[in-house]
């Protein structure tokens, strides 16, 4: 076991981990961040997406030790008011398993681009699979969040 320190949702934390631990394990099992879902485990489905230094990455392929000193953001750390309203209104949530990852990918896009085009939204969520909605509702919901 050893200690690793990083910023989780704006707060400095230090947590004891196993050496080869993956970020998804640390977040879910040690820090009780359950919004981060375990899907494929091989970087294809995107449901384990978190932001590291504001960029989306797959936490199932990120060694916790490698994020020492960096900033990690999950949906627990962002204001969800606009997302909740738009995702509900547009029917962008069915089973909900992909939703936290989708929101984080969209949030990362907004940090760089306040008024993204539909294509830019599609591109931003292209690493997040949804098997329920067919994506249109999600894209529309993200467009709505931008409009406010």
């Amino acid at each position, binding site marked *: 076991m050893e200690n690793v320190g990083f910023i989780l949702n704006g707060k400095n934390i230090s947590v004891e981990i196993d050496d080869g631990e993956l970020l998804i394990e640390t977040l879910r099992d040690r820090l009780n961040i359950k919004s981060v879902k375990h899907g494929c485990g091989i970087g294809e489905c995107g449901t384990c997406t978190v932001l590291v230094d504001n960029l989306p990455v797959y936490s*199932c392929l990120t060694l916790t030790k*490698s994020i020492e000193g960096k900033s990690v953001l999950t949906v627990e750390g962002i204001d969800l008011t606009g997302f909740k309203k738009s995702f509900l209104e547009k029917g962008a949530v069915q089973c909900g398993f992909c939703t936290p990852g989708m929101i984080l990918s969209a949030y990362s896009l907004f940090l760089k681009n306040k008024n993204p085009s539909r294509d830019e939204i599609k*591109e931003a969520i292209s690493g997040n699979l949804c098997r329920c909605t067919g994506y249109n509702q999600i894209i529309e919901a993200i467009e709505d969040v931008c409009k406010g």
Partner: protein
Amino acid sequence: MYAKVKSKILIPATLDELFSIMSKISNYKIIAGGTDLLIKIKQSNEKYDYLVNILRIKELKNLSEDNNYIYIGATLTFSEILENPIINGFEALYNALKSIGSPQIRNMGTIGGNIINASPAADSIPPLLLYDAEVKIISNNNSRWESLNKKVNLKEKEILAEVRFKKITGKSDYIKIGKRKVMTIARLNLAYLKENNKQWRFSSGAMTPYPLRMKNLENICNLKNYSDSEIFKAIEDDIFSKTSYRPSFDYKLPVLKDLIINILRENQ
């Protein structure tokens, strides 16, 4: 439920520290973005006592140019390279990197990892071959440049430090045939460059065990006159110099031939 990674993780901050670590340990693997390696470790019995993460080593994150070359540090992520205006004008490379995986994969995966993993379908290699790319291989007391035309084979205690390619101008592009638009591994890929808008260069991926500069094809289409059948024969000569016939070629060869003929016609 999770596939565990059991190795000890070492994260050197400098090259000196890295080589000092490498001289003391065995059964280790160098790891950068981990988007290929961690999947292999999770899915197979590849077991290493140590994973040496080289992402914090600044010397490996250089992106620069001189009169002849662009230099790209091995651990730069695809996103970091794409954001840098230095690769503007090298469309084949830009489009190839842009086609990799997803935003998440591009934020994690590195160009050095793509080269060392050396998948037949590696997106970065065909465009780099167009520009006569070379890789810099370093060890504690040595460094050398090697052509990327052959698969990079690191010896004991060596690492890939950077890749450089010639600043050859001219129209270029990268074409990837996959099962879907994003998050896909190329079934077939093709990069081309018309050097100074005169001399053709071509390279293919996912046809041969390692991506291939298509020299026979280049020789034919740089002649003043050639026929379609000469082009087709040259393509086959290139491909079959490195592999025998494969069942997938029933599909891939006609597609490759059509792509090349179309590129030649559109850019006469």
